[in-house]
């Protein structure tokens, strides 16, 4: 019974729980309910992944309406994997959220905060699971609107401008996506992805389809903060409540990458994309993104903003992987989606623990904290090493596949640029490490205690996962490779 409706439950459970949390009287009860919901989502998502890994593709007809007339949820290895990433991030963030949210958000807003959080989760899970592009747009809006609200709850007043900036950019992106969807609907009369994949080739010559493709690509690129369209991201990540920064950094852009992959490979097919300058654009923007965003990151004095720019750079790597257009490149992208979620969530959690104790995310207020909060410091260092891509960490696996994909095509320049990006990461990660390690001469010797366990345990779970997935890649790489070859050959 549950197994049959697994995919829809993943969306419906958090959706129904969302309004309930809003009316709960006490913040802690709202938190507890959200915790239960996220953990059950994680269980469902893992269950779903197991079914898919056994070699099945799940196709669920919403309301019993057969596709292509009704909405279909279609789950293969790729989106089952992304769904696990989203659900797992939510599940691991929630224990962390209790203390952090209580400190950062006014008590009467906390139930509403969790409502928005659950809606955001619903939206992100919905995007990954649906096989209908209009439904995808709807979920994209659900997740976006709730994340605007969540970002605006940040402690500083700039959170409002940051949320508004994101709202404007996000809406432009969503509108572009909608225009694109409308155009291909007018050409084919269908919204189902598989159906589109069948019908579109006959109208590939039409200029409308090319226009639609451009609209969709730019709309999604705005959502995933691809380099020149990333302007909303640093502010949003900097001023959002810590928990939201962790959650969005690990999931939102990744889901957008997934949408990109789905649109290019499943809906339009790679044959179509190869006639457009898409791969060259991805390569170019990826490379520029990696370099420029890393340079920006080096010059930041606010830790959250620094990591936000680093996220833009990491998105560059993922897009670069798509740009190679090879199985190895796609594998690198999918692996990096997972690994980057691990490392960025761990980093933002460690930074959040420091903010929890010091009340500031500015590096100048952090001098010598490494001695007073050794566990948080160690977590930050290890997650940072993973971001750099040192062997023994998850980040190394991503780097390895990316460079191998470049070397495979004898693209030496790109290989070198990927490694240069790693070196720039050394600089900005070490900027934080040095501040924490060395004591400033004029800091007062105020005693600051180690972060509370409720913050430390989730952080360290992620840090250990960073190490674990650096040694055991059976799960990540195998799934990524299956998903990549599936995309490449376009056989669901």
């Amino acid at each position: 019974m549950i197994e049959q409706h697994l995919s829809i439950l993943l969306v419906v459970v958090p959706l129904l729980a969302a309004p309930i949390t809003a009316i709960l009287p006490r913040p802690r009860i709202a938190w507890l309910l959200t915790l239960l919901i996220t953990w059950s989502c994680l269980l469902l998502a893992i269950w779903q992944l197991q079914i898919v890994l056994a070699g099945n593709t799940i196709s669920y007809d919403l309301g019993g309406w057969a596709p292509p007339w009704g909405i279909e949820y279609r789950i293969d290895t790729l989106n089952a994997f992304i769904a696990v990433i989203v659900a797992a991030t939510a599940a691991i963030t929630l224990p962390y959220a209790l203390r952090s949210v209580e400190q950062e958000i006014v008590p009467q807003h906390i139930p509403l905060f969790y409502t928005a959080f659950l809606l955001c989760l619903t939206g992100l899970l919905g995007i990954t699971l649906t096989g209908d592009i209009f439904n995808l747009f709807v979920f994209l809006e659900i997740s976006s609107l709730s994340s605007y609200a969540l970002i605006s709850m940040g402690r500083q007043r700039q959170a409002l401008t940051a949320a508004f900036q994101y709202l404007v950019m996000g809406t432009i992106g969503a509108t572009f996506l909608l225009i694109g969807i409308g155009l291909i609907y007018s050409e084919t009369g269908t919204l189902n992805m598989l159906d589109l994949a069948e019908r579109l080739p006959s109208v590939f010559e039409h200029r409308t389809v090319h226009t639609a493709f451009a609209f969709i690509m730019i709309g999604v690129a705005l959502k995933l903060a691809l380099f020149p369209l990333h302007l909303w991201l640093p502010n949003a990540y900097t001023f959002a409540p810590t928990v939201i920064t962790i959650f969005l950094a690990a999931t939102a852009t990744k889901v957008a990458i997934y949408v990109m992959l789905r649109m290019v490979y499943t809906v339009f097919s790679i044959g179509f994309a190869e006639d457009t300058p898409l791969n060259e654009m991805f390569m170019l923007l990826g490379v520029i993104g990696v370099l420029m965003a890393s340079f920006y990151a080096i010059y930041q004095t606010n830790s959250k903003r620094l990591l936000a720019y680093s996220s833009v750079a990491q998105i560059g790597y993922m897009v670069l992987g798509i740009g190679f257009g090879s199985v190895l490149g796609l594998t690198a992208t999918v692996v990096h989606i997972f690994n980057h979620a691990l490392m960025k969530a761990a980093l933002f959690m460690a930074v959040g623990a420091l903010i929890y104790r010091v009340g500031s995310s500015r590096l100048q207020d952090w001098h010598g904290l490494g001695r007073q909060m050794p566990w948080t410091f160690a977590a930050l260092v290890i997650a940072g090493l993973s971001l750099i891509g040192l062997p023994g960490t998850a980040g190394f696996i991503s780097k390895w596949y990316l460079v191998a994909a470049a070397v495979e095509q004898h693209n030496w320049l790109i290989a070198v640029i990927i490694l240069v990006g790693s070196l720039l990461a050394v600089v900005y990660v070490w900027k934080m490490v040095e501040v924490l390690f060395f004591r400033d001469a004029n800091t007062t010797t105020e005693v600051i205690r180690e972060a509370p366990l409720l913050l430390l345990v989730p952080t360290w779970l992620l840090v250990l996962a960073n190490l674990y997935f650096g040694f055991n890649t059976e799960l990540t790489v195998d799934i990524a490779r299956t998903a990549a070859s599936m995309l490449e050959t376009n056989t669901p």
Partner: protein
Amino acid sequence: MSTSWLVLFTLLIPLAAALLIALFGRWPNLRDAISPLAGGAITLIVIPLYQRFQAGSRLELNLLEPLPGLPIQFELEPLGLLFALIVGPLWLITSLYAIGYMRSHHEQNQTRFYAMFAISIGSTLGAAFSGNLFTLFLCYEILTISTYPLVAHAGTPEAQRGARTYLAILLGTSIGLLLLAIIITWSISGTLDFRPGGILNGKLDPAWAGVLYALFLFGIGKAAVMPFHRWLPAAMVAPTPVSALLHAVAVVKTGVFMVLKITIYIFGTEFMLTNNISEWLIWFAGATILLASLIAMTKDNLKERLAYSTVSQLSYIVLGAMLANEAGLLGGSLHIVMHAFAKITLFFAAGAILVTTHKTEISDMTGLGRTMPLTFGLFLIASLSLIGIPPLGGMWSKWYLGLGAVEAGQWALLSVLLLSSLLNIAYLLAVPARAFFGKPNNATIPQQIKEAPRSCLLAMALTSLACLVLFFYSTPFTSLALTAVGGP
């Protein structure tokens, strides 16, 4: 006990030691006993490992497989065993020395110091027993990271600068060049295993082989071939035990060890020789030998002078590797051992002088030989070994290196080696000469004998004794090196 457990123990004991040190941080006496105990245990393990190896036992141990075809693999291999045979005992001696040094110098954060020290040794031993290039690279990077807090130990702005240079060069070269070289090697040959005869022969255009070798050579920043040598003098801000064991033995030797391994087991000597891969690269090593010696002469700070001396001596080993003939490789491998014992003694002496008299500049040490005769006497012995004067161990490695240069018909390189020996005399012997025969120019030198702490003296005496013994009995090392280079 099975051989595979013995190898695993050499990796696990340092890690366990680090953990125990962190736990017992509150009780300094208990904490300080852990490092020598662990060092002793490692020594007691590597010796039977050597005996078993000579009796013919071989081992290949796969732990995990992070990337398909690239397992974390450890093996019993002559060069690695040679390396482990010096690291184990020297850790024991250095930790004895460190107790005396750190306590009389009233260093802060000693728990962190000893814990990171143990991790560094663990990764060095991991590098020594690595069964493929991937595992070696993993240990190489762990070593870089775990030594960073040791270099930055003092926490002063100067330490911050030094540590920054250290990390920038070591990580920069290893990620920017070495990792690229490794991935290229992997994509060409489909494997990163260390195999006798190499894995690249016949798969790589000889014209490109030189470029790949250069990527490896400069990517291994720990080998300190110029122009990537700056990190080593910068690392001298670390406490002396670190400079002694890590920056004269473990870290730098991991670098040259890697160069040797890559030459013998990745490129293969035959491939190297028939295609003259190191034709122009060898001059980087030659230039480093001479330039670093010349720079060493200008340094007044004793530790800095020793650091440049290390840069110069490391290139002897790199030179031996690039000669790629039997004598050259034998000389290079032996020089790992000979240089280790001599240079660690010199650093011990520098630290002993520092804790006893708080002097770091050579010009201030004039006449100090009368106050610390033992320290300077042992300094003299180690210097002579480094110069290569019999009856001290350093002679053998220079002998074989010279022989290698002659066999290769590289007369210019032979003269580089000889010239460098003369320079060694100039910059090393100047120190004890000044101390014993110079007239103190001010009254700050105490007139009575005031030697270093006893544990420091003991450590120095042991290592300089080893220099002497190695002249008469270097069989274990010679036979291991010979097996590695494929000789009789």
